[in-house]
């Protein structure tokens, strides 16, 4: 998605990215980025909390309007929860048993095959 933002911006359309993977978006380098420090899937606020969604969209629009140069990142002040321990869970092998790692490998092999078949069908493999 960062590649699309860069492409639009370079071709005359100002962009704002709303996202939760700060390192990935900043590594690519985008014009404007509103970062929410939330689990992936919640770039626009918390589920069933319309106030946080409204706050997040409003902040994104303010960044779109006010950024003075590229690579502008603003971090939303909203917190997912108090302890932030969710960050220690995501794909963290240190928190997985060897059986869990083996199961995930088997799952991923299956998923990869499905994705490959899909790409071949779509003609992009």
């Amino acid at each position: 998605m960062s590649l699309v933002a860069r492409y639009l911006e370079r071709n005359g359309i100002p962009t704002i990215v709303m996202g939760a993977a700060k390192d990935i978006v900043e590594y690519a380098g985008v014009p404007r980025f509103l970062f929410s420090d939330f689990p992936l899937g919640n770039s626009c606020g918390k589920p069933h909390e319309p106030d946080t969604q409204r706050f997040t969209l409003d902040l994104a629009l303010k960044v779109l309007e006010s950024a003075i140069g590229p690579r502008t990142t603003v971090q939303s002040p909203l917190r997912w929860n108090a302890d932030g321990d969710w960050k220690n869970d995501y794909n963290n092998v240190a928190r997985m048993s060897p059986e869990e790692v083996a199961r995930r490998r088997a799952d991923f092999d299956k998923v990869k095959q499905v994705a490959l078949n899909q790409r071949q069908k779509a003609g992009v493999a």
Partner: protein
Amino acid sequence: MTDTMDFAPEYDVPLEYMRRTREYYLALGYDNPYRWAHYLDAPFQPLKKPLKDSTLALISTAAPYQPDKGDQGPGAAYNAAAKFYTVFSGDTSVDHDTRISHIGYDRKHTTAADSNTWFPLPLMREFAKGGRFKLAPRFHGAPTNRSQRVTLETDAPEILARCRQDQVDAALLVPT
């Protein structure tokens, strides 16, 4: 007023997804790590007119719900069959059922039960109604097919062309 010495825990920083992902796939036995897009510069275009007079387009990585493509949630396992491979567009004046089962989001802490957390179209309609900006007639779905070349050479130009057709002045992009 002054800051205290009661510092936050060391782990409580923005998650390092690239490092975590690299380590994860290595532990699973894959030793060909994904190479994320990386540039030193970034382009920049100021808004050409006030936001309230600008037409804003939503660009999303969410997929349209496809009943024949297996479990797409809420709470579905990663579902590569639900991926899409060409840019699609939808009418912003009506609601759309979009899902994120085709994306590697946080399966433990994200319920994926409220699409407003990844597809803010209803809220954008409300903001536009209130005069904050003009909503473009179409939103656009960007494929997440892991081919950066296809994104750069096919999908991004297609999205730009559609934005131009709609005389879009600015774009709000929501990756999941």
